[in-house]
């Protein structure tokens, strides 16, 4: 029995203090936030965040491949890969396979990929535009079938747009590709409304809870948010300034 009086620890929840049933919460990580946090030297902050989080930090097999297995073979990033691997070994990150079977996850991922990557087609030649990939789709799949409170930590803008503002997706992609596209947004109907945060919001929470290990002030928050922006987090300067105002 731990300090919270844990008796049963399962997929959907656990017994908390005084036998109270506490539903499990999951933060599902895409590769991007782990990379941007690691490249900013903020990996230890993930561990501190986990210590104040009443749930699990989840990695899917494809995400693990991107943040551990592949960089392990690249000398330039091997050290970072070892650090992330260490967090897995020490249980800071839990593999999705410990919660759901990989087979089940794979099946759901393929369903999501088919729906999401069928939404946009070129008007002229009816070619499908692939907008999300295995790692992101696995995160969505886990969120869809884990049956628990969850949020996906993803820095990639397009995946967020898919469910938060699908009506903008067509115009944004048309602007980028400089060609007319047709959207079949009804294909997304089967996908539940996901909740997304980014590495920026994780750092915001860490800053607020004074977990960074550097004197907590507005300059630090500014540095943290721009730090992840310049290491791959899709966040605008306007959003950063708004987050700084929220912190006042």
């Amino acid at each position: 029995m731990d300090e919270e009086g844990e008796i049963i620890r399962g997929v959907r929840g656990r017994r908390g203090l005084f036998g109270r049933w506490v539903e499990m919460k999951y933060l599902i990580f895409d590769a991007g936030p782990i990379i941007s946090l690691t490249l900013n030297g903020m990996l230890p902050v993930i561990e501190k965040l986990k210590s104040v989080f009443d749930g699990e930090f989840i990695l899917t097999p494809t995400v693990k491949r991107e943040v551990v297995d592949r960089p392990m073979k690249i000398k330039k990033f091997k050290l970072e890969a070892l650090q992330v691997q260490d967090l897995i070994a020490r249980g800071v990150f839990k593999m999705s396979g410990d919660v759901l079977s990989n087979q089940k996850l794979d099946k759901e991922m393929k369903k999501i990929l088919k729906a999401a990557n069928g939404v946009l087609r070129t008007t002229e030649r009816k070619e499908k535009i692939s907008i999300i990939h295995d790692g992101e789709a696995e995160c969505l799949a886990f969120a869809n079938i884990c049956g628990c409170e969850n949020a996906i930590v993803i820095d990639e803008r397009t995946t967020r747009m898919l469910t938060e503002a699908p009506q903008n997706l067509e115009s944004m992609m048309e602007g980028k590709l400089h060609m007319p596209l047709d959207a079949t947004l009804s294909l997304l109907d089967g996908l539940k409304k996901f909740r997304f945060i980014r590495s920026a919001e994780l750092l915001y929470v860490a800053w607020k809870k004074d977990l960074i290990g550097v004197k907590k002030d507005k300059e630090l928050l500014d540095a943290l948010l721009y730090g992840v922006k310049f290491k791959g987090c899709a966040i605008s300067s306007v959003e950063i300034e708004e987050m700084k105002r929220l912190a006042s």
Partner: protein
Amino acid sequence: MKEVENVLRILREAKKFVEEDKPNELKSLSNQTVHAATIAQDADNVIVAVLIYSIGKVMERDHYRTMDGWKDFYDAVIKNLELAAVALEKKSIDNARIYLGRIRNSLNKIEGDLGVYVKDVFRKAEINKAFKLHEHGLSTEKTAEMLGVSLWDLASYIGQSHIGDSKVAITMPAKDRVKIAEEMFG
């Protein structure tokens, strides 16, 4: 390989621009290929884009032309662009890939600094094209896969993009997203 006709045209024009010593035209030709590559999401198109862009960058640097191995590299470029185009005309895509690969492999035969410098140009061109593909709407994961580069390499480049600053890219007010994070952490 998708868009074979387009790739064939690009290779023909590339050879012409190399012979006419027009590095800027080569780079602009490469950008056209990136656009096609985004739609087709085809690695062959990306390889051509990287190759043409790299040749353009190498030709921009006049001092490379006086270095040992320059003639071998230049001859390999001209010869293999021609052979790749002929192979594509005959619909022999595998052979075209081999000839395009030989341009890059020719760098391994160059002793001295030139080989190292040009290899570096190719590596940076891969990252540059990855950035362009991402700007054209490809996910980071797909971009990395098509170029054979790691997400780690891409992270800093993607951070330089201004896409995230456009209004349409903001899909939820910042305060709402912060609220989600705060709710998750109780």
